[in-house]
């Protein structure tokens, strides 16, 4: 009996991710959800620019590679091409989604675009070698904030989930983490809900996943997971930030 196998929606190819990076876990969760919902044949994924640029090689569904930050606009086109038959998700990092693609993100949410966004926040630009991200913590040392992020000089991190939850258009916003088993299970639940919402035509869903970057944080994988618990989560509290569906039910 097979008790553990690769999800069908994940290709049988080696990932290029660094040891200890949690992209692998998040990829797997997305693939498991696509399998469980039986939507592989309808799904079109959009890869970003950044560490997960090669995600188009890893998911087994049709894939599109977007320009840096533009994934929500590309996803809008993919969805509007055939709203009843396309399930569209983007998989984006923090530089892509919260810096260069801020406008595309905010307006996709404002339009209540019926797409699913998986937003991987590891507080750093990984692919280019560890520069300060829009989500880098105050004081965080990076290649371009070598003395620590000085908020008097370059301002404060962008809290994407909090920000988007202020928009009437946004349907479902939740922040999760994948630093321990309990959080991984919660993350999967949130991702599944974000896809189910799209199937049910409930509109814009975004799951922010707090992730690690041991390589550019300069930590062992274990230490990186601890840093998530001790530094990231206190600044980026986990939880549901917006759930229009639940709000409606409450009103009723």
């Amino acid at each position: 009996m097979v008790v553990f196998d690769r999800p069908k929606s994940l290709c049988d190819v080696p990932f290029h991710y660094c040891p200890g990076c949690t992209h692998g876990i998040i990829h797997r969760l997305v693939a498991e959800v696509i399998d469980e919902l039986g939507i592989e044949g309808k799904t079109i994924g959009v890869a970003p620019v950044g560490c997960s640029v090669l995600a188009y090689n890893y998911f087994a569904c049709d894939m599109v590679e977007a320009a840096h930050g533009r994934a929500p606009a590309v996803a809008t086109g993919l969805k509007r091409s055939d709203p009843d038959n396309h399930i569209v998700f983007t998989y984006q990092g923090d530089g892509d989604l919260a810096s260069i693609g801020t406008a595309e993100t905010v307006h996709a949410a404002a339009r209540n675009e019926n797409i699913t966004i998986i937003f991987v926040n590891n507080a750093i630009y990984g692919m280019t070698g560890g520069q300060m991200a829009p989500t880098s913590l105050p004081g965080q040392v990076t290649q371009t904030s070598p003395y620590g992020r000085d908020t008097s000089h370059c301002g404060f991190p962008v809290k994407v989930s909090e920000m988007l939850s202020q928009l009437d258009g946004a349907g479902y916003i939740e922040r999760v983490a994948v630093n321990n088993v309990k959080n991984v299970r919660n993350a999967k639940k949130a991702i599944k809900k974000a896809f189910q919402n799209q199937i049910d035509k409930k509109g814009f869903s975004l799951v922010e996943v707090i992730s690690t970057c041991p390589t550019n944080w300069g930590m062992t994988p274990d230490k990186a997971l601890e840093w998530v618990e001790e530094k990231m989560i206190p600044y980026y509290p986990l939880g549901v930030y917006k759930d229009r569906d639940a709000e409606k039910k409450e009103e009723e």
Partner: protein
Amino acid sequence: MAEKVLMKGNEAIAEAAILAGCRHYFGYPITPQTEIAAYMAKKMPKIGGCFLQAESEVAAINMVYGVASTGKRVMTSSSSPGISLKAEGLSYLAGSDLPSLVVNVQRGGPGLGGIQPSQSDYFQATKGCGHGDYRMIVLAPSSVQEMASLTIKGFDLAEKYRMTSMILADGTMGQMMEPVSLEQAVVESYDKSWAVTGTKCERKKNIINSLSLVPEELEQLNFARYERYKKVEENEVMYEEYMMDDAEICVAAFGIAARVAKNAIVKAREEGIKVGMIRPITLWPFPQKAFEEAADKVKSFISVELSMGQMIEDIRLYTHSKKPVTLCNRVGGMIPSPEQVLESIRKANEGGNK
């Protein structure tokens, strides 16, 4: 021929796009092309199409990229500063070999410039708008009728060669009204096996992508793309020759400039000056041969442009500078008058007699 209706150039583009089977339009407001968006906003919801006002030109071109990825006809339109913003997306469309139609109703520049007509985006359109080695098919209408017919042609060429067709119009073309006859376009069907529409679990996945990290592979992709471009150059050149049979002076002009030049040529002929015109309809591929051949027949060329002289460089290039080429131009939203062009023709005629 269908019944003629009076239409603005911009509206003719919009209606022609619908007749060509385009059901997805994304745009951002900018003068002097906004009638296209307004027309689409009115029409699309009534025919099961999608009009969406994007948050920026950047977003609009990426929405185009999304629909184009699914193999459907899609377009956006803008004016000069907006096209600069779309440049990134145009490069990605080229890198992913996606068909699309992009309209530029040009206005004076650079920068925010003005809102009056111009042809100063010739370089941008024909020499590379975004980064990397790529081409766009550039179509230059000279009447409201051509605004419509070249839009239909543009969609067809875009799909045939999997590249972007750009309608390079100007503020005059967009705003002026003329009778136009519009008919349902015959839509050829081209191979779309590359499109992402969901695998239905029946085929291998498709990937729409412009990233290629192995230089040997990226080189081959560029070579293959340019083989395709070569076919466009061989098969799709369009131009009009006007009174060129016995011409000793050749005027070169496109779009609104060609309309003005025609008037001047008629007057010059009345004065006994043997002058004709080559009007490029495709600015890329450029009618190289027509100019090469004319260079052996005429004494000189005059390039009439609403720019500081952009097409003139191609004329010099493709006539191998065999004959003198002078520039007759206005810029910043100004249009040369027939008298100004006539004066240039007279001067060229005198020069030719020396």
